[in-house]
């Protein structure tokens, strides 16, 4: 097992904000091209601020800790501020990640950004029809 920082272990053992949001304002789903894992972020936006952030993750310990800390970092932030969460910041916040786990920190920031994109797109378009995001087709 990779050697993880205490912070990673803490977030892995007690991940914050796991779950989905009913009727989210934005959904961002990314796959990890390196190992094939998946992360989905759900956001609620009030007055240009992230009033709720939740995630689901299929991946390694680092990926779960990354999702958890990204959700925590993003919570309550304005959309502009939330966009400034970079993989490097995520890794720093987690007190470092093993080298071969850096790619997992990309996922978190990407998924969050995608959720924000999704929200903005919906704002510009007809909102209701896409309420449930792109996972809808079944």
């Amino acid at each position, binding site marked *: *097992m990779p050697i993880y920082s205490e912070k990673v272990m803490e977030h892995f053992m007690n991940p914050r904000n796991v779950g989905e949001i009913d009727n989210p304002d934005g959904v961002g789903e990314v796959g990890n091209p390196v190992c094939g894992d998946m992360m989905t972020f759900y956001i609620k936006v009030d007055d240009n601020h992230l009033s709720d952030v939740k995630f689901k993750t299929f991946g*390694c310990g680092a990926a*779960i800790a990354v999702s958890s800390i990204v959700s925590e970092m993003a919570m309550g932030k304005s959309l502009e501020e939330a966009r400034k969460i970079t993989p490097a910041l995520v890794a720093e916040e987690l007190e470092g990640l093993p080298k071969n786990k850096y790619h997992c920190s990309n996922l978190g920031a990407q998924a969050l950004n995608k959720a924000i994109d999704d929200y903005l797109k919906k704002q510009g378009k007809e909102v209701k029809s896409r309420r449930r995001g792109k*996972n809808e087709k079944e």
Partner: protein
Amino acid sequence: MKRVYLDNAATTPILPEVVEAMLPYLRDAYGNPQSLHDWGDEARETIEKARGRVAALIGGQPGEIIFTGSGTEANNFAIKGLAQAQQSKGKHIVISAIEHFSVLHSAKTLEKWGFEVTQVPVDGYGLVDPEEVAKSMTEDTILVSVMHANGEVGTIEPIAEIAKVVKKMGALFHTDAVAAAGTIPVDVEQLGVDALSLAANQFYGPKGIGALWLKKGTRIIPFLDGGVQEGGRRAGTENVPAIVGMEKAAELAQQDMSSRIQRLSALREQLIADVSSEIKHTILTGHPAQRLPGNASFCIEFIEGESMLMLLSSKGVAASSGSACTSRALKASHVLTAMGIPPEIAQGSLLFSLGLNNSEEDVDYLVEVLPPIVDRLRQMSPLYAKFVKEQGGGK
């Protein structure tokens, strides 16, 4: 906290009797087997006796055992040394797609040296079909290597049948028996092989000692150049304490083999039955019957191996996984891939390998702690959420 070691495929613990047997050779009997005095004589006699014991474990002759520093070394030695010794006859090598990295990467090195390597596929159980081996061989084939048993999924290969095919075509046949020797009956005569690798830490002996059994009269290029040790084929001062440890472990393995197999198979069946019934969407990997006694390998759907290992470890349970995230190269296990297991399923790879140190209580404990771990990770998994949605709304 309770601690349960279910990673015997990585290494078995060392038996107390083995440690006891080794101690005198770590302390007082420190002679170099090549020295020409009492100390040397004693050490030489000691390793020659051990050679006989280790040979007996696999039905070979004492003179056919070359001690090595590990199973990996034995495999490197066999693949590279036999290919080089045969290269005037041909340049083609055949291996299976699920070989250990020590065989796989040795074959890669041979490719760089100008040899040609063909990988034989396996079926969904990880079995090599002797017919496929035959098909892949040409006039130019000088060496075939197929493992005796796969430690990752437990499948035991039809080595004797493959050997017949290989012999018919006139090539040499090596088998990596590291996961099999000392665990299940292995007899070089019955198998009809020319070379076979084994390692002591797979049957309750020490680490850092293995052996290559090489059929009498088979030419091989020396692995280490130097002195005359191991018939000049593997130079370097012999690791006397480790050799003695391997001897003791081999003796015990031979003596207790059937009772060990019985015990471990029963535990394995209990583990497989309980995990399969307690956890839905669990796939047993490897052959259901033709399987190493202690091997219980699964793919747990919708979740990933490393996160399972971390949560298991927080409960004191040691296991392993072939998921991409657990590998340094971030690639799913080549064994699972060769068996046709799709990447997202292989991500849920989870291997429990039982050993003599395990009891029924250990299995019970595992079956108590594992389901909540799987549940918890599935609650977090977008794949599982999708699956549930499809199940609920799809029909």
